[in-house]
């Protein structure tokens, strides 16, 4: 059940850090492989990613990784070298920080934070700093436009994201992610507590808002103007090659993994399985969470590969004219119901 | 330039006649292989000025009513009305075509250099793959006063007809009026014509190279602008004039 030996806090910290560090590339790898390579290849009748390595093109991702590592590291002459080099790291660090508070079991969480949700959302928007740095330091107009678009977009969509989450927080009565999971597992809806109360049932509006806003935060397709390949080539990433580009890539998919995990935790009941407690829950928790987050991620990538891209002004209009008012209404409704129906 | 145009029509006719007389000579100079090809195309050749299609004649009458004495000559060439106008009436021709013939669509404007490409003496016969063009200057269906011409085609999207307009360009000071104010699409065509033939278009908002780099010298489509690749190495198209194996044509026997 528990590890029998006592471990000092330093060792614990090291182990935890290592695990989270492992999770980012692992998550990125899993999402990249499952959705970017396999699902997209099936949707688009692509032959290339289905070929290498024999069975179902399993080798493609490895090959891509090798390719990225082999590539020459190019830095533009005009680039602000230090900022240019630092930007990908900041993007990945922001992803890293989100994972600190996502619980994968009753005890399997790196850091119990009472402001967990808000911490997660706050650090997730740190990546915009990295994006801005990348765009500015590249000394490329496409990169600059991409970075400015990204900044405008992330600011605009941080709000609906928060407003969507506030509904959950009100209903759960806590900002601690573990607390939210427990609230869902122990909750009941219309007197039924057989499978608890995943907040997707009561917070469906919030869930949709969260997914839309998360898609924008991730700069995925209906909202991918910052990287729009057909106009800005690759936006702020345009001057990055090889390993540095790989960092952005990992950051992008790692963040997608984190947001899918957040959505699963906030709305789908997280790691919890009703009726399973104790050590077994710790054991099964990561698997349950993984299944749920893959379901969310499937949806996110499905949209990503299907939809066209909005224009910058249309994107802002959607955020300010629709999502934010809906989010506010959702909060008001949740609060009223919370008070009226104890 | 404008005041000499009335007599332009006159010297044309003899020139054209001379041109027709010249063509067989040129063909005779072509390699022996050409002998076989001779009889076939010779039949449809003498038909440049027969009776015009009544619809085309009516179209021309409409155009002439608008342009008046700006018209020098007209002809029908394989179903297309070709009208040669005086250089000073070039822009008015476009306006008339647009207003009276409903030609709202500009197809193209292009230059023309009637001068035969200069040949280096003694070079004949080595590169038999190259088409042998006549050595004398001849001037197409409606004739020309000199070496350069500008021709354009405008069409009507409603009436479904078109008109090809031609005008002569002075070789010493090649310039005609721009059509940009009539057809905005003339912009690029005139820029192309300007860089390819060195023909200036007065009234064009900003004439500048279209395809070529700014430092390019010369006017590539002029006949005296040599195609260097062709000078250095003959195109290996000789196979077209060599007899096919197992083909019992006269020149085969001649070769044997």
């Amino acid at each position, binding site marked *: 059940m528990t590890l029998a030996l006592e471990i000092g806090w330093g060792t614990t910290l090291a182990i935890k850090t290592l695990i989270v560090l492992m999770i980012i590339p692992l998550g990125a790898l899993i999402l990249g492989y499952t959705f970017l390579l396999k699902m997209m290849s099936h949707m688009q009748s692509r032959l290339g990613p289905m070929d290498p390595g024999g069975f179902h093109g399993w080798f493609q991702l490895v090959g891509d990784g090798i390719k990225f590592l082999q590539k020459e590291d190019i830095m533009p002459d005009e680039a602000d070298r230090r900022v240019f080099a630092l930007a990908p790291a900041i993007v990945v660090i922001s992803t890293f920080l989100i994972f600190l508070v996502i619980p994968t079991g009753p005890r399997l969480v790196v850091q119990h934070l009472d402001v967990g949700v808000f911490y997660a959302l706050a650090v997730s928007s740190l990546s915009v700093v990295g994006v801005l740095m990348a765009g500015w330091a590249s*000394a490329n*107009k496409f990169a600059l436009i991409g970075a400015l678009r990204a900044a405008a977009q992330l600011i605009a969509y941080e709000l609906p994201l928060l407003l969507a989450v506030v509904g959950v927080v009100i209903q759960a009565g806590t900002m601690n992610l573990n607390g939210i999971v427990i609230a869902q597992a122990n909750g009941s809806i219309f007197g039924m507590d057989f499978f608890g109360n995943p907040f997707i049932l009561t917070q469906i509006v919030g869930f949709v808002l969260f997914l839309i806003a998360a898609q924008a935060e991730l700069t995925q397709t*209906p909202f991918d103007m910052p990287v729009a390949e057909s106009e800005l080539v690759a936006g702020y990433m345009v001057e990055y090659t090889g390993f540095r580009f790989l960092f952005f890539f990992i950051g992008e998919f790692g963040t997608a993994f984190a947001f899918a995990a957040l959505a699963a935790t906030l709305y789908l009941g997280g790691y919890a399985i009703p009726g399973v407690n104790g050590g077994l829950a710790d054991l099964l928790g990561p698997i349950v969470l993984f299944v749920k987050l893959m379901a969310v991620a499937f949806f996110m990538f499905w949209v990503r590969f299907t939809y*066209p*891209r909005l224009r910058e002004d249309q994107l802002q209009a959607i955020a300010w004219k629709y999502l934010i008012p809906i989010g506010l209404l959702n909060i008001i409704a949740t609060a009223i119901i919370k008070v009226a129906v104890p | 330039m404008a005041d000499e145009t009335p007599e332009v029509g006159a010297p044309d006719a003899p020139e054209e006649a001379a041109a027709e007389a010249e063509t067989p000579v040129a063909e005779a100079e072509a390699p022996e292989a050409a002998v076989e090809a001779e009889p076939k195309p010779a039949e449809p050749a003498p038909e440049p000025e027969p009776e015009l299609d009544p619809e085309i004649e009516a179209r021309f009458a409409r155009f002439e009513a608008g342009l008046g004495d700006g018209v020098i000559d007209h002809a029908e060439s394989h179903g297309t009305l070709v009208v040669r106008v005086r250089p000073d009436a070039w822009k008015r021709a476009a306006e008339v075509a647009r207003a009276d013939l409903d030609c709202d669509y500009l197809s193209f404007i292009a230059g*023309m250099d009637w001068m035969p490409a200069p040949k280096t003496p003694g070079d004949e016969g080595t590169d038999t793959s190259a*088409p042998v063009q006549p050595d004398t200057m001849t001037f*197409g269906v409606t004739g020309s006063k000199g070496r350069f011409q500008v021709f354009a085609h405008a069409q009507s999207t409603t009436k479904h007809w078109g008109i090809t307009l031609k005008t002569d360009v002075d070789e010493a000071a090649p310039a005609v009026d721009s059509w940009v104010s009539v057809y905005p699409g003339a912009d690029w065509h005139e820029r192309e014509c300007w860089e390819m033939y060195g023909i200036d278009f007065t009234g064009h908002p900003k004439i500048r190279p279209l395809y070529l780099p*700014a430092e390019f010298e010369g006017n590539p489509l002029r006949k005296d602008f040599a195609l260097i690749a062709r000078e250095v190495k003959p195109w290996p198209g000789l196979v077209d004039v060599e007899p096919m194996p197992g083909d019992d044509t006269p020149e085969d026997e001649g070769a044997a």
Partner: protein
Amino acid sequence: MTTTETPGFEVDPALHRTLENARVNVELDNGDMILNLGPQHPATHGTLRLVVRLDGERVVAADPVIGYMHRGYEKLSEFRTYPQITTLINRIDWLSSFANEVPFVSGAEQLMGVEAPPRAQWIRTILTELSRIATIYLFLGEMGLQVGALTPAFWGFRDRELVLNLIEGATGGRFHPNFNRIGGLKDDLPWGWISECRATMDKILKGCDDFEDVLVGNEIFEARTRGIGIIPGELGAAYGVSGANLRASGVDWDLRRDGKPYLAYPEIDFKVWTHPDGDSFARYWVRLQETREAVRMVIQLLDGLPAGSIMAKVPRIIKVPEGEVWVEVENPLGQMGYYIVSKGATGPFRVKIRSASFSNVSILPWLLRGVYVPDVITIMGSLYFILGDIDR
């Protein structure tokens, strides 16, 4: 700061400065920014360069710079014999090579007074329509890519391959068939080709339905294309914009129906689609309908394919009598025409190539004024040009 030699940017000193220092650097000295789209830009299908002056994301002025792919076909044609030239003109609009050959060959035939036998004409029509499908089908997918939807582009490539297989099956060349001969065709259709063609046409129709499902009904696609890049019909015609671009502006003009009768078009029944709006969406919609119409035409042509010879009697050495001819046809991208001047030799004296994209793109400076950067891409995508067709 020399200002006169650099091609065409005297109009705008700021544009000029950018061109002089080839390096693009971030300029913040004035409110406007110069952005070089291309010559290496994914949205330009090749090497079109678009210098745009931006105020924020709004385009203040745009100037297309062409000529990066100018191959001088008009000059080269003067040094080739007629049969050799079809190789060159194949590469003008390289997506619909076969359709480029037809007008040139038929121009030479008109000058020679030769007429290709009916079967050759019908096969030419079939292959022209197939290259139309191959070209426009790619557009239908690629337009999705221009507005950010990745998937349709791959569908476009996938199903176009089926059509290219057909063209390859009949002609031996996937992209550059070089199949036309003056007086007819090189070969007859191979065995089994017709049934194969029918099967493929069904797939194409289904693919068109897929495109309609994925893009035409999509709110985001409509938001991105409706009302964007409106070309008034009259102005479009004056610019020489042709083909589906003009028909999408409500001009009911199709050379297959309205021009001088050519190929087998007078004998088959087809509808010319127009759209009143003139925006990017209309251009997409018209092309979608045109693809379906082309499929219908191919099926009609297959049904009515006459028997007989595929080659008229022509001398082996092609010598074209003196004369001038203007041939124009409705190509996938618009009006394609050749003005052939012959002086009785084995090669033309002058060939003026009137290609569709050249005029279609010439309207860009007018069209792009005041739009947003993303719309630049949408508009360029919806005009659908091929670089080889601009530069020739």
